[in-house]
């Protein structure tokens, strides 16, 4: 190394993956779990060195002859033969781990030709066969597809095909399903299990999702700051967690059984919790009403994508409405339409101000600018939603400057106040975002959203880029702020457990439409729509007694494909669908001819 000093990131970790078994490596980001997998593959970044220890790989195809990978030259021939040939790897981001300018067939076949050379025609046949195995419906045509033409789930399947085409003895899967929707996650996990059985390979599964661990692993290794905290068979780990860190980790993830009002326990305490005022018990009135909202993307000559289709809902004052759906369901577009970041094609959005209702879509010019502070937004990605060239002070102050609130001194005072409010030390004000962790950055984003005293905050996947423990902190912070400042949230997320924790009412979106909306408990206990049911069943729970039903949603084009729904929900003619009242403010989208009884029976 040229400069900088050596930091020990993995300290004396020992683990063992046996053939045909799955070992889960669990930990937060920064715990060193990815470094472990990189060392095994010989893929450590240039400034990473294995200082001591051994990595013994016993190849079952060579009668268990062992090699110490740590001793091999990283890019030497021997290491390269193992890498990709005997050990395959799947990465977290299916979007970026495939080259965008080569077809998936080309990229998969390349791995095949490196380790098991075939004549060209045969190679294509073998590749297509592999594509078929990982669930591509039309392998011949898929071979010539580019990654950007595929959905996230299919891309991850292509990655699996690439890792498995040489029949490796070991598969390293680094957060293979973290970036995927729950139903797709269930499919990919199922596929991994099947392929493992078929090839008899060992899997080293790296994840922070204890639900995935409970459903996949035979053995679990928990790492924290580069050290093994606890290791053992999955039964021991979940039923008798010994180490406090593991116990805390199990408590930090929200699940469906939490009674309302219970708080998540963050691993590391939040430094400052705002004062909690008792909530005034009045019947909540709607703060924002959305009616018949519609938005189509592209397609001037027809053939556009309907992103939002006839969406109607109310957000009640002081409450949190959860908007759940898979990627592409149109939930983020709804948020953008309300924020006036995009223009709606049809429908109305009414903001119920004490001074009288405001037609949000009709606002223009100065009126729109004056209205903007009422609605603010918290974004998903804490890295790209903060300008790296502005200090924290500038970032949080910017809305105040734009709206011309107060003098410079007053603005600065307000910023300090906001920093306290979100639990950040005001001494950090002159720092730049890069010196903060993901959770801290998200706090900065929250402080910025709070700067103008908004009435409604749209949270667009605010915790999906964060670790479980940090996620708990941020969710608690949002809850505390809601009760102390009387905020109303529209909480957009794909994570059902998180929405369950945050929202009083939940709307489920599929293919641009709200298919079901109702109070949290009604929706989770008695889901009526097949899509909602499917979503709920696809969530892997960190509980060994409630294993994931892997058979869901494996047929057809996924759970959001209306073809997989019973006839009552499919709506042969589009306009026959309408919201049916199930009682208790619980509505479901179904055929007009159905009664509440039909729907619940279906």
């Amino acid at each position, binding site marked *: 190394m*040229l*400069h900088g000093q050596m930091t020990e990131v993995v300290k004396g970790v020992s683990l063992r993956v046996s053939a045909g078994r799955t070992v889960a490596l669990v930990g937060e980001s920064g715990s060193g779990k990815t470094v472990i997998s990189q060392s095994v*593959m010989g*893929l450590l970044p240039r400034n990473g060195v294995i200082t001591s220890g051994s990595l013994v790989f016993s190849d079952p195809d060579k009668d268990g002859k062992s090699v110490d990978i740590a001793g091999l030259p990283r*890019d030497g021939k021997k290491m*390269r*033969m*193992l*890498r*990709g*040939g005997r050990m*395959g*790897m799947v*990465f977290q*981001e299916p979007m*970026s*781990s*495939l*080259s*965008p*300018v*080569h*077809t998936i067939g080309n*990229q998969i076949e*390349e*791995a095949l030709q*490196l*380790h098991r050379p075939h004549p060209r025609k045969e190679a294509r046949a073998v590749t297509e066969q592999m594509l078929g195995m990982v669930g591509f419906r039309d392998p011949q045509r898929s071979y010539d597809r*580019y990654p*950007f*033409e595929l959905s996230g789930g299919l891309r991850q399947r292509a*990655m699996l095909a*690439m*890792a498995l085409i040489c029949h490796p003895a070991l598969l390293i899967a680094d957060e293979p399903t973290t970036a995927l929707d729950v139903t797709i996650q269930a499919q990919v996990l199922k596929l991994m299990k099947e392929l493992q059985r078929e090839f008899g390979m060992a899997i080293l599964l790296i994840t922070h999702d204890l639900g995935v661990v409970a459903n996949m692993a035979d053995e679990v290794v928990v790492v924290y700051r580069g050290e093994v905290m606890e290791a053992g068979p999955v039964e021991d780990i979940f039923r008798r967690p010994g180490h406090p860190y593991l116990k805390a980790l199990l408590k930090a993830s929200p699940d469906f059984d939490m009674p309302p009002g219970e708080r998540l326990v963050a691993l590391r305490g939040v430094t400052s919790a705002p004062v909690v005022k008792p909530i005034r018990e009045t019947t909540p009135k709607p703060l924002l009403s959305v009616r018949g909202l519609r938005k189509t*993307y*592209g397609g001037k000559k027809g053939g556009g994508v309907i992103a939002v289709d006839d969406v109607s809902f109310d957000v009640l004052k002081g409450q949190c409405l959860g908007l759940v759906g898979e990627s592409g369901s149109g939930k983020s577009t709804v948020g953008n339409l309300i924020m006036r970041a995009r223009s709606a094609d049809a429908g109305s959005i009414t903001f119920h101000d004490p001074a009288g209702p405001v037609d949000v879509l009709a606002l223009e010019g100065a009126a729109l600018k004056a209205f903007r502070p009422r609605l603010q937004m918290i974004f998903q990605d804490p890295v790209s939603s903060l300008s790296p060239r502005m200090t924290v002070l500038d970032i949080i102050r910017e809305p105040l400057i734009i709206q011309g609130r107060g003098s410079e001194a007053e603005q600065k005072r307000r910023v300090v106040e906001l920093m306290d409010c979100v639990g950040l030390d005001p001494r950090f004000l002159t720092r730049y975002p890069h010196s903060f962790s993901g959770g801290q950055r998200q706090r900065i984003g929250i402080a910025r959203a709070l700067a103008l005293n908004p009435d409604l905050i749209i949270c667009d996947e605010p915790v999906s880029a964060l670790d479980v423990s940090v996620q708990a902190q941020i969710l608690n912070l949002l809850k505390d702020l809601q009760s102390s400042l009387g905020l109303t949230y529209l909480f957009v997320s794909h994570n059902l457990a998180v929405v369950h924790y945050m929202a009083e009412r939940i709307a489920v979106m599929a293919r641009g439409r709200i298919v079901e909306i109702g109070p949290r408990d009604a929706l989770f206990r008695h889901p009526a729509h097949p899509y909602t049911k499917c979503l709920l069943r696809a969530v892997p729970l960190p509980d060994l007694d409630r294993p994931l039903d892997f058979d869901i949603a494996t047929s057809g084009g996924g759970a959001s494909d209306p073809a997989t729904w019973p006839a009552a929900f499919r709506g042969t003619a589009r306009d026959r669908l309408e919201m049916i009242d199930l009682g208790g403010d619980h509505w479901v989208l179904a055929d007009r001819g159905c009664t509440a009884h039909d729907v619940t029976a279906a």
Partner: protein
Amino acid sequence: MLRYIIRRILIMIPTLLVTSALIFTVMQLPPSDYFETYVAEMAAQGEKADLSRIEFLKREYGFDKPPIERYFLWIAGFVQGDFGYSFEYEMPVRDVVGERLGLTILVSFCTILMTWMVAFPIGIYSATHQYSWADYGLTFMGLIGIAIPHFLLALIFMYFANVWFGLSIGGLMDPVYFNEPMSWEKAKSILAHLWIPVLIIGAGGTGSMVRAIRANLLDELQKQYYVTAKAKGLPPGKALRKYPLRMSLNFFVSHIGDVLPTLVSGSELTAVVLSLQTVGPLLLRALQSQDMYLAGSFLLFLSCMTVVGVLISDIALAFLDPRIRLQGGSSK
């Protein structure tokens, strides 16, 4: 794909029309024109200009007509290969430019070639050996290339060539061959003179291109798909060539369009200093003397080069990157 290319070519027509109108307007903006400047100059020298001849020229070139009509006459001529009349040289623009255009293209082409041939290997080496001493050294040399103005470099070259070797390195060929028909001797003379202006004009471009390639490749080397390639067991060289290098070409190709005009218009001073027989010095002089057809034709010629360059780079990009090829036309 064919539709895309045809559409892009069709778009060029209005672009060029607007550019030419702009050029024409700018040429018209000064309150005087070439004739008035000429008459004033003559009067200052105590001579009388041949007014009848000027009247004739004015009529001949439609200076008595409204500007709009003159603009269309000019454009119509341009399309037919008649670039107008240079008042200063008293001959058609085409003859004034003559050989210079070919020489300009030759110098530019050689410069681009040299820039690429030098910058690519250096850029790739710097990126793959980031923070090594070689990287620092090469980057520093590139910086020097960017920081020193061309004409200064030309002067330094000329001075030392003269002091040390007693050579005069100006010109693109021995003056006796200029405007002579091409011969073996002439070609040899051009080749002997060519390398110095190419080196000087290319220095800055090479420097910035090294930096650009290095920066782009460094970005690409961080990308996940490169790790995937290595995880497959690809040898390092092949992994580099097939994935990150290919991706960093995108940036490079999209800049092809800018290269030509920058080279031509950026090297005028150097051309003056080195007395190169390219179009640069001519353009400079034409702008000073308001020789509007000569200047206008040059400028229009430069815009044509830009537009064609952009077209080439767009088409090349579409071939290189399936995302552009297959998703073209989709909007937000």
